């Protein structure tokens, strides 16, 4: 297994296996280009100017975790089943990050094109929004209500079906 050096925007190098690095499709295509250009033996250094060091570290944690082969060798189906459950638990714990880290992470996942991680992050962001009233969302995301009065009336009337029950729920 070859190793690859990923260089973050602030110049820190991370050494990972090419298998883990290939989880990112951006890196994978870059690697293929590099291999074609420079041959098999030269060290593969992939510069990633859009990702900072701590975010890249977090992304690589995900990549390494998701490429490690299962240690249990009793049977293939059994392994994949338990491993899948383990990974789900691991993913849940992995997502316990603060909001701004989550945004950095989703940008990195988008740039590096890691489909699983992108999906995971989007779900995490959706969880931040879920179940909040418009006022609550404004407060939580630091947004300003920049509707004009007529506009707001209009959009509220269109979506009254969703807002009415909310009030009833709040009363209970």
């Amino acid at each position, binding site marked *: 297994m070859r190793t690859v050096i990923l260089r973050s925007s602030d110049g820190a190098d991370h050494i990972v296996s090419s298998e883990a690095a290939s989880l990112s499709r951006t890196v994978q295509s870059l690697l293929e280009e590099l291999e074609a250009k420079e041959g098999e033996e030269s060290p593969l250094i992939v510069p990633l100017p859009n990702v900072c060091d701590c975010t890249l570290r977090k992304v690589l944690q995900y990549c390494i975790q998701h490429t490690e082969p299962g240690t249990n060798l009793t049977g293939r189906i059994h392994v994949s089943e338990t491993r899948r459950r383990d990974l789900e638990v691991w993913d849940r714990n992995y997502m316990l990050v603060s909001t701004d880290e989550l945004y950095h992470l989703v940008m990195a996942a988008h740039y590096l094109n890691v489909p699983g991680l992108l999906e995971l992050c*989007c779900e995490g962001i959706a969880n*931040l929004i879920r179940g909040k009233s418009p006022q609550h969302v404004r407060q939580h995301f*630091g947004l300003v209500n920049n509707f004009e009065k007529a506009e707001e009336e209009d959009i509220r009337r269109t979506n009254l079906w969703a807002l009415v029950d909310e009030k009833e729920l709040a009363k209970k």
Partner: protein
Amino acid sequence: MHVQQDVLKAESIGEYRLSLNKRDELLGDPGSFLKDLGLCSGDLLWVMSDSTKAVPTPPQASLPAGLSTSDASPGVGVSVMDTAAEAQVPRMVFSTSSSVEALRLLVHAALLDSGLEPLETARNGGAAAASDVSELQYVLRASPGHETAAHRAACSIKYVNFSTNLVVWGTTASKGTCHISIAAADYIYSQLDSRDQSLPESVSQPTLYAKDISNLHMRLKDCLIHPILIALCAEEGRSPPPSFLLLPTEIKLLCLRHLQARDLAALACVSRDMRCVACSDTVWEPLFVAEFGAPSPADGLRPGTGAFMPAFGARWAERERRRRQRRRMLQDPRLPYPGSGPHLVVPHPYYPSGIVGGDYDRLPQPFLGFSGSRGSGSGGSGLFRGPGFGFSASRRPRWSGLS
């Protein structure tokens, strides 16, 4: 004060670098003295070891007691954090003996970590450190890419001790106040240091350790620091910290795919920018199809016209109205319910009583025997009294008074 022996208390932690901001390395030999490195009390010191893999034993960091609060700004000592262990189990050791004091250091470290720095003028002696209430002013750290604004927006952070809890209030000029309450027992635990036990004079104080720092950082950032940062950046006219609206549109849409219709509708009422994203057909069309099936051509719904959200709302409201109506009909006994049940049978005016019309008059006499229970007197005991007829007769006595 020797760095490697006194501060880090570690003989061999391999290669490590010291930094004040997690990025730029401190110049000078890491094995030298604190004074030589230009460190003073109030600085947050990061111990960085370069590796993505796990460090077998994270270096333990602690501070000598004499340094922390003697000439410090209120409640702030040199805190040492280890970035390599951050990913696994962050550990931190404190110089203070009070757990709330240690918690205060942690909050300060989190504030520094997210780009705020204490204002110099706020350092008004160590008198406030001992009291239960202390206040510190923080400003945004000047970034090299951004020329320093003439007006530096400041926020004041107020630390209040309540026995074993710490309540932190953050106040900004434009945004008002937000607060968070932290229980020391959740994040600080004390343990007798094995090294200290060998020395009789230092046994008296158990060493404090931090646990679950990532969780604390998460709570702090979401409840306290993020709102403050947004407000401060807005006041200074800087570009705001990363937020949902600044993500590229395709990521926003990917996120909204995970939401349900009710949340999306609420989101559309937040602000203009949100409405642009939350009304788009790419998120509403799958929801519409899942809820009401594929739209027929008669509905006139074409993707890309932005008509799916209003259509969804109209259909949903209509369905809710019908549901409510049905429920009311089921619950209200006064309204007739068109279902199976005993219907009123009007007796025929010319037939003998007990014969109600329909096919009854074509049946032979013995079949009518079952209805003798009504006392009509027409054929008392029938020969062919079957169970089926018996059953139907037993349902009828309610109306026998009418016939």
